[in-house]
Each structure stands twice: as structure tokens, then as C-alpha cells.
């Protein structure tokens, strides 16, 4: 799980969600790529962040894309974040013995614009949270930073500042993650994506 390095965080705000991740892809101590995507849009209002082994990140992203597209064809509607989280949990538990080495974070707004975030372990145990979810090699740093900075009912711009500071300062102290970050703010009006510059080491 620590082979490639990652740092992912999602936070709830007032009718909005923020999800952010670093951009490093490494092979133990060697950095291979500084623009590696770990957070993916599933629908316009639901995002998933995947930390852990990079090969499983890609494999699972492709799996979820397929299953969500099939869902859309069958149900003739877009999948809700809570439903998608259960789908992710199911896909992971299918491999209970011989699991994918990932920790997913699901974040989205449901059809009534109510924010939803959850995290999971590698076999799909859902952890619902009211405040924030973190995962990756910088997990412990992120827990501390988020606990200190997060407060309820933050507006989108304030939430962006909060999540950015939590993410940046956590990855700066973690050797396996960093090299910049991407943050997505999901609001009922749309998604704002911003690139952050961290310590480039």
C-alpha cells in the first residue's frame, strides 16, 4: 500500500463537498510521475478518490466506470453517491481474500444537494462521516490537520481554503506523497477544479 504513495482527503461543507489528492506516483523512494490522477469523476456530482497501489487504482476506476455506465443504461438515471459507495463496497468485498490494495474515498452531492462523503478500507467497510475522510500514506498527518482546521457549514471558497491547507501541509511532511495537488469543489452550481503547488520534493 505504501509502494506508490498517495494522500487523499474529502470534506463536507454547507451544501458542498471538496475532494483533493496529491499528484505523485512513485516506486518506493523514486518518483516516476508528478501528474498522476487519483481522483476521478464518476458522475457530474460524484467523485471517487483512490489511494494505494497504482495498478489497482486504474483497474478499479475502469471497473467503476463500466458498472456506473451499465447502471445508467439499466436505471435510466444517474447514480446517487450513497448508492455508488455501496457499489464500491460490493466490488471490493467480492475480492475479500485476495483484495485490491486500495482505500477509496467517495464524495458527492445527492439529488437534493445534500453532501455525502464516506471512506472505506480495502475490503469495503464503509465509514460514514459528518466532517472529513482521509486516506493514503499521509493519513495520520491529514487526520491531525483536518481535525484542527475543519468546522461545520463552510461555504465553498472557505472549504477550498481549509481543504487546501490541510492537504498541502500534510503532504509536505510525508515523503511518499506530494509534488502538487488537485482539489475539486462540488457545488449544486457545478464543479470547480484547482491545481495547488506544494513543496516539489
Amino acid at each position, binding site marked *: 500500500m505504501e*509502494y*506508490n504513495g498517495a494522500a487523499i482527503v474529502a470534506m463536507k461543507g454547507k451544501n458542498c463537498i471538496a475532494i483533493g489528492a496529491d499528484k505523485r*506516483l512513485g*516506486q518506493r523512494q*523514486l*518518483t*516516476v*510521475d508528478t*501528474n*498522476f490522477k487519483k481522483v476521478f469523476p464518476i458522475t457530474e456530482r460524484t467523485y471517487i478518490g483512490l489511494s494505494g*497501489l*497504482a*495498478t489497482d487504482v*486504474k*483497474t478499479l476506476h475502469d471497473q467503476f466506470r463500466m458498472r456506473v455506465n451499465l447502471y445508467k443504461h439499466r436505471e435510466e438515471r444517474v447514480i446517487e453517491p450513497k448508492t455508488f459507495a455501496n457499489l464500491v463496497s460490493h466490488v471490493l468485498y467480492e475480492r475479500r481474500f*485476495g483484495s485490491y490494495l486500495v482505500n477509496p474515498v467517495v464524495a458527492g452531492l445527492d439529488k437534493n444537494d445534500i453532501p455525502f462523503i464516506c471512506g472505506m478500507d480495502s475490503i469495503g467497510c464503509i465509514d460514514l462521516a459528518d466532517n472529513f475522510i482521509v486516506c493514503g500514506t499521509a493519513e495520520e498527518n491529514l487526520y491531525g490537520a483536518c481535525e484542527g482546521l475543519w468546522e461545520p457549514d463552510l461555504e465553498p471558497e472557505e472549504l477550498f481554503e481549509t481543504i487546501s491547507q490541510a492537504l498541502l501541509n500534510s503532504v509536505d511532511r510525508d515523503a511518499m506523497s506530494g509534488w502538487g495537488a488537485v482539489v475539486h469543489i462540488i457545488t449544486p452550481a457545478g464543479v470547480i477544479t484547482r491545481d495547488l503547488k506544494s513543496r516539489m520534493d
Partner: protein
Amino acid sequence: MDAQFALTGRDFAISVTDTNVLQSILKIKTNKDKTWQLTPYTMMSVTGEAGDIDPFADYIRGNVKLYSVRNSQDLTPKEVANFIRGELATALRSRGAYRVNVLVSGFDKVTGEPSIYWIDYLAAMTKVPYGAHGYTAMVLYAVLDREYKQDITLEDGMAIVRKCIDAMQKRFLNQMSTFTIKVIDAQGTREIDFSEA
């Protein structure tokens, strides 16, 4: 220990591999081509476990060729890279995982963009402006991070390749006397003679 790296420029991609085959302390072959041509505009260099390279590379080459024959159209570099990654990922958790590291270099005729896809033996894939595998990556990334710029010409690219080769020949135990240098651009793939590099 194999040297394997590639870099892109304005409208070309260069792939470099060394030509030694090592078995413990001996060089059993000194003129091996470690690259595989998949379409006229896409190639891959493959290194890793000796017994896995040929079966895997042959399988990929055959299937890419089959697609071309069936559809009268070649796969683009991005499609080839994703196909290779998919095959590696499927094999990873099966009985016969391949321990091979791949660099896919290609030129997309539709967009006019060169590309390099770095794929490791665990099937982690990423598109990069320059990439390397193996122990030599530790030295090569240092040189490439310093020297590389966006939108370089072929002469600049070859100058960087020359610097990379010099660094490897200086620092690594085994003597790497020749390299296979291939360039892919709008005209297709051609080999550059190492002595001219």
C-alpha cells in the same frame, strides 16, 4: 541490468535501450534489440524477467497486428498502451504474472502528438514526457530532470540522449557499449545508428 528510457519532443519520440543480455556475470549476447514494433507509429521496449519478455511481447505484437488486420486501421499509441496495461493487470493476479517493464512510444497521426506511456510490472501506467525503468532510472531521471525541456527538436533530443548514455557508461558496473536508438515521428519509425548519436 538493462538500460531503458524514452523521451518526447516537439513532434517525435525517441526510445533508447541497451543491447546486452546478462546472465549472472556474463554477457551472453551483446547485440540484442529490446524493442518491438507494434504498428508503424507505435513501438514498445520491454525489459525484465528473461523468460517472460518474449512470450509477453509476442502476444502483444500479435494482438495489435490482428486488430490492424481485422479493422483495416491501426491502434493509436494510447489504445496500445491501455491494451498492454490491461493484459498485464489481468495476468497479475492469475497463475502467470509477467514480470516485465514496458515503455510504449508512439506518434498519433490524428493529433500530431508524440507520447510515451510508462508501464511497470504491476501494470501501473502513466503518460509521461520522459521515462525510464530499472536501476538505470535512478541515474537517468537525474539527468533528464535537469536537461529536459518541452518542445525540443530532434537535435536537442539526441543531445540529451547522448548525455544520458554518458552518465550510464560512467556510473554503472557493466559496460554498455552499444544502444538501440529509435525515433518515431510523422514519417514512421527509424533507427539511428549509435555511432552517429
